[in-house]
């Protein structure tokens, strides 16, 4: 192990580090350089875009708010397109969630400070669904583990799992350190996953991700046996209905991999762009994981609780296609439990234009933008047991929100919302 720094900077970078771009940029460069040192990076790379986490007041607290305020006051401004992670509440309709005025005031200030720095203040974990769509091979500094997984795997862009301050620093100085998933060596599969059972419904993909994430930790799994159309960043793929559905289930797969494990990249044979470009991408000598049955994963994701008082769909934030499915399943029904459909502001607006928001609300549910259950101040709210079709949310429910979780298909979740009981 080396005790000296391997990092070599360009003369422009040296100047920024010396403060020639101002104090705010100097601090950003210091953070990026420090991260580069830790990971033995040899150089910095320009980033195409940034996704900034560390938005919910519940997590940031006064310490984080104070830091952001100070940095903004030094003149910190982003120099590349940057989008913001979910906040602790719907930024417009927070009262409907049961959020206190005090929390709302602080949350509002946090988002205003980010906006003052030039971060686009739409708060979502799916930036790739609202216009922050990376190019294949582009270097990014994204935080939000599910979005990192999507960008790396489904689009073939290159990002490590950044922490909040590291991502914001990258947005301000426009650079990140070249290590990990930015390098070809970091993108080679570490495990071959042979899927030998049926994986069809969206919750099947979540259960699979949960199961594999637990076994590979921070590795790079290579899936074989998933029947999906090719995906990628190309507009033709994004627009094709079949590929859009594949994008939805791969979003759920990646979110689960990133929450039960620390996966930031996976490949799917014949489906994801790097696996399509290189048919021999997976080395022969990596460990093999055979998946013959998803029942053990489903059992692990289900708490022993039948009375449901909250149903949540949209973790990660729902796409328009998912909003349509939920609305179709709720039409004409009357809900007994609280029901949250979480999504980005932009997708909500599109859904509203189609009448989908009205359908959900007529049934007694809420469409919540900008926020999610994992980072909202759930301990201040009265819920105990959540039903969801998201393996990510089921994984985090107890630890992050103090909620017991039931996990299953969308149809089961909607039935639970009508009856107040898990339909086992």
């Amino acid at each position, binding site marked *: *192990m*080396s*005790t*000296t*720094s391997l990092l070599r900077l360009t003369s422009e970078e040296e100047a920024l580090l010396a403060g020639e771009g101002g104090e705010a940029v100097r*601090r950003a460069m*210091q*953070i990026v350089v*420090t*991260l580069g*040192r*830790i990971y033995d990076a040899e150089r910095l790379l320009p980033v195409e875009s940034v996704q900034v*986490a*560390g938005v919910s007041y519940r*997590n*940031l*607290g*006064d*310490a*984080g708010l*104070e*830091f952001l305020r100070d940095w903004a006051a030094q003149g910190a401004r982003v120099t590349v397109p940057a989008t913001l992670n979910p906040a602790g509440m719907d930024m417009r309709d927070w009262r409907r969630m049961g959020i206190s005025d005090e929390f709302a005031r602080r949350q509002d200030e946090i988002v205003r400070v980010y906006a003052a720095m030039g971060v686009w203040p739409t708060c979502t974990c799916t930036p790739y669904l609202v216009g922050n769509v990376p190019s294949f091979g582009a270097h990014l500094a994204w*935080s939000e583990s599910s979005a990192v997984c999507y960008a790396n795997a489904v689009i073939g862009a290159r990002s490590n799992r950044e*922490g*909040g*301050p*590291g991502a914001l*620093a990258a947005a301000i100085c426009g650079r990140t350190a070249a290590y990990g998933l930015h390098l070809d060596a970091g993108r080679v599969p570490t495990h071959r996953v042979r899927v030998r059972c049926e994986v069809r419904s969206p919750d099947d993909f979540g259960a699979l991700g949960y199961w594999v994430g637990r076994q590979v930790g921070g590795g790079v799994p290579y899936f074989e046996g998933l029947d999906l159309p090719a995906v990628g960043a190309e507009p033709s793929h994004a627009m094709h209905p079949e590929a859009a559905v594949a994008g939805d289930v791969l979003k759920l797969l990646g979110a689960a991999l990133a929450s039960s494990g620390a996966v930031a990249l996976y490949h799917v044979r014949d489906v994801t762009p790097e696996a399509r470009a290189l048919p021999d991408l997976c080395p022969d000598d990596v460990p093999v994981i055979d998946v013959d049955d998803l029942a053990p994963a489903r059992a692990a994701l289900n708490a022993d609780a039948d009375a449901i008082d909250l149903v949540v769909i949209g973790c990660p934030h729902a796409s328009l296609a998912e909003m349509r499915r939920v609305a179709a399943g709720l039409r004409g029904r009357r809900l007994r439990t609280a029901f949250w459909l979480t999504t980005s502001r932009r997708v909500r607006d599109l859904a509203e234009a189609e009448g989908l928001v009205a359908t959900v609300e007529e049934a007694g549910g809420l469409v919540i933008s900008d926020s999610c259950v994992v980072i909202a101040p759930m301990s201040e709210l009265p819920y105990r047991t959540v039903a969801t079709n998201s393996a990510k949310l089921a994984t985090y429910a107890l630890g992050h929100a103090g909620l017991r979780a039931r996990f299953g298909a969308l149809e089961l979740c909607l039935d639970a919302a009508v009856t107040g009981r898990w339909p086992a």
Partner: protein
Amino acid sequence: MATILRGRVIVAGDAQGVALVSDRPIGFLGGVDPDTGRIVEPGHPLEGESVAGRVLVFPTGKGSTVGSYILYRLAKAGRAPAAIVNAESEPIVAVGALIAGIPVIDRIDISGLVTGQPLTLRGEELIVG
């Protein structure tokens, strides 16, 4: 007699203080009170000790990335450690120490360090005694 250990500079700076040594990782969010500097993680070997002004020695950081901001707040409250010595640094503590102005050195064999020793950090050198 003083011993000199050599490590890797993560956040440059010189500092001295009395060692506070943990053989277990430290998570700052929820693990350290940002107003007092006391370690509050239940069951942690250093529970109840204050990090303020000490040279804090621990293997590596753990827990939420928000821990970085806790270090910043400790510094603003005047309750930050004088320096941090790690076996292997990770981003949460490194970035937090950087924005808080706390020098950090890593790749030090911390197994021989004990609480109460006077430690001096000078560049890549850690002087014990």
